[in-house]
């Protein structure tokens, strides 16, 4: 059960109060007891005084009677005469004083009797002197009756005095004990009360200190946020969730929207929107009040009436004790325009690609058919009209046929080249070594009489499009095969090496090579560095290789020397 701070303090004060009251009561009772005891002391002193007075009175009376017995002068009888009433009075007072103690009363009773008898005895002595003279009186005195009385009287008085003292001692001891207890209780109670008060005070103190620290931290944090808010490069503001008025805006908002901070204070968030946006705003506000959707794309309106597209992020806050919303507004007008432009270009690109596709398709059919006709009928001429043609005529027709076939090949190569550009790339792990081996086998199969040594590095793989990379190797190995045609024994290598952390693949041959001076033309479409008579080819192969390599993000280059072979290097990204 957790007790709140206020209850703890209330309980503490309550307990302290109770204890202090108890202490007060104890103190009061102690004082009363002390007064009572003072009374008891006085009481004892009174009793003792009365007892001594009694003794003195009797002694005086005795002395007086003795003196009278000796001298016969009645002047000496004065103490005796007054003794009676005096003793009555004293004994009467004693009776009152010891009324509460049965023992003392008993003693007092016997004392009273003794005293009376003593007085009577003395009376007799006096009477005898008066009547019969000294001798008779002396005899009375000697009889000792009177003397006998003296002992008990003294004893009784002594006993009463002692008893009274004892009583006093007892009461004193009693009082001291009670007083000590009361004192201890008072000390203890006071200390406990002080302790509780001290504890309560410290709790209050801690609580206050904690609160002060929290306030300071919050102020500091508010300061920081204020700074961030004011200096934010994004326009930001806080608006009242109910009235929709602007509560505070930052500098960026002033710049972006054109209103001064004072003007903002008079506006609601409706005023920064064009009229057609208001219904959507109302709908959103309901959602927002329920704690719903926070972000979105909006159209706003500046003071000068121009519109801007903004991306808005909002966040519920409490501002000045009222529910409000903090808004960050990011001008994305340009971005939206750029997006639209991008989409437009993308559409155009797609259209262009579609056109290319259609073009390639049409080329497949439409350009080949006439070529076939030219070639076919040329051959028909050669065959059927062989005898009517002279060697020159026949040769012309051969060249016609050769021309058409070459054109057919060009068309193939152009189609391949365009395919490379427009085909979608599917990236995968490609086994280049495997491909090279396959291509080498095909080259051998097509021309089994050649002696070519293939040195193909094993396990060379790369990330890229399998089809496209296959065409790269076909071209490079095919070239190597072609340009080593004139060597009786040739050597073609394929491998990979690492340069500056990048994997570089190469195809090397020891064939015709080329002059590095013309290396710049190497990869141009239809560019050739050799006469067709020496090595045929359309000049598309390397252009295709370059396009594929570039699509993979890599580079291709070559090193060669005439008749000393060539090495073609390429990287893929």
């Amino acid at each position, binding site marked *: 059960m957790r007790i709140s701070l206020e209850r703890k303090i209330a309980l503490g004060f309550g307990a302290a109060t109770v204890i202090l009251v108890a202490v007060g009561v104890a103190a009061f009772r102690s004082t009363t007891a002390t007064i009572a005891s003072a009374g008891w002391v006085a009481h004892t002193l009174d009793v003792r005084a009365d007892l001594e007075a009694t003794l003195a009175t009797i002694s005086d009376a005795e002395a007086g009677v003795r003196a009278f017995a000796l001298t016969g002068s009645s002047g000496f009888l004065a103490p005796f005469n007054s003794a009676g009433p005096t003793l009555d009075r004293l004994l009467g007072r004693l009776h009152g004083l010891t009324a509460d103690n049965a023992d003392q009363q008993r003693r007092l009773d016997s004392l009273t009797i003794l005293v009376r008898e003593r007085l009577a005895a003395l009376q007799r002595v006096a009477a005898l002197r008066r009547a019969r003279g000294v001798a008779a009186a002396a005899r009375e005195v000697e009889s000792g009756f009177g003397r006998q009385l003296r002992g008990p009287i003294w004893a009784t008085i002594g006993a009463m005095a002692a008893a009274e003292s004892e009583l006093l001692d007892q009461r004193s001891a009693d009082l001291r004990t009670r007083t000590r207890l009361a004192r201890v209780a008072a000390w203890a109670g006071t200390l406990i009360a002080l302790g509780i008060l001290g504890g309560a005070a410290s709790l209050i103190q801690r609580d206050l200190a904690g609160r002060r620290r929290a306030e300071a931290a919050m102020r500091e944090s508010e300061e920081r946020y204020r700074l961030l808010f004011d200096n934010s490069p994004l326009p930001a503001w806080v608006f009242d969730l109910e009235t929709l008025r602007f509560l505070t805006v930052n500098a960026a908002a002033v710049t972006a929207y054109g209103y001064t901070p004072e003007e903002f204070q008079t506006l609601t968030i409706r005023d920064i929107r064009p009229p057609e946006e208001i219904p959507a705003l109302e709908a959103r506000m309901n959602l927002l009040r329920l704690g719903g959707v926070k972000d979105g794309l909006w159209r706003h309106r500046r003071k000068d009436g121009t519109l801007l597209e903004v991306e808005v992020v909002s966040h519920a806050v409490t501002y000045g004790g009222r529910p409000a919303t903090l808004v960050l507004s990011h001008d994305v007008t340009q971005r939206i325009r750029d997006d639209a432009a991008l989409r437009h270009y993308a559409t155009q690109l797609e259209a262009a690609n579609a056109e290319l596709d259609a073009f390639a398709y049409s080329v497949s*059919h439409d350009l080949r*058919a006439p070529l*076939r006709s030219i070639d*076919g*009928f040329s051959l028909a001429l050669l065959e059927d009209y062989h005898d009517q043609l002279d060697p020159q005529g026949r040769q012309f027709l051969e060249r016609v046929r050769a021309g058409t076939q070459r054109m057919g090949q060009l068309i193939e190569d152009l189609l391949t080249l365009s395919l490379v550009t427009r085909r979608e790339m599917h990236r995968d792990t490609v086994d280049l070594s495997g491909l090279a081996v396959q291509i080498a086998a095909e080259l051998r199969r097509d021309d089994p009489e050649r002696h070519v040594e293939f040195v193909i590095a094993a396990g060379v793989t790369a990330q890229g499009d399998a089809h496209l990379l296959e065409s790269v190797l076909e071209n490079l190995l095919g070239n190597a095969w072609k340009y080593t045609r004139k060597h009786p024994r040739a050597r073609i290598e394929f491998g990979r090496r690492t340069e500056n952390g990048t994997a570089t693949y190469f195809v090397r041959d020891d064939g015709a090579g080329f002059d590095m001076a013309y290396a710049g033309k190497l990869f141009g479409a239809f560019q050739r560095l050799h006469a067709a008579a020496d090595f045929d080819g359309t000049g598309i192969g390397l252009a295709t290789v370059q396009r594929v390599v570039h699509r993979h993000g890599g580079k291709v280059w070559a090193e060669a020397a005439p008749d000393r072979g060539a090495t073609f290097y390429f990287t893929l990204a």
Partner: protein
Amino acid sequence: MAGKFILLVEDNPDDEQLTRRALAKNNITNELVIAHDGVEALDFLFATGPHAGRDTRETPQVILLDLKLPRIDGLEVLRRLRADDRTRLLPVVILTSSNEERDLIDGYSLGANSYVRKPVDFSQFLEAARQLGLYWLLLNEPAPPGTGA
């Protein structure tokens, strides 16, 4: 017409002549029926239009079908052939200049039996014709006539 005959669906007169020549050079003497576009081809096969009255049970040994045809193109002809019981089982060889993947896939999907590219080089074409003739006319056995239903 008795005996095995070939239906050649080809719009290009040059190609038509060269195909005739190629077959002849290979001593393939079977009759060659020419349809110049898809409509003619279908009319012939289903005995409609100008060919009304023809016995549809007389079916070609093989149909050499070009793809790019005016009016109704090759793939559409193929589709309709395969949809009709009378012609469903006829062997069709697509003989075309195109090697577009799309055409290959479409051709086979629609039920062509074979796909041969027409080479530019005529001597290659001759060789192709020889092999086609050998296979489809001599080696291959078509379904018995009238069994498409």
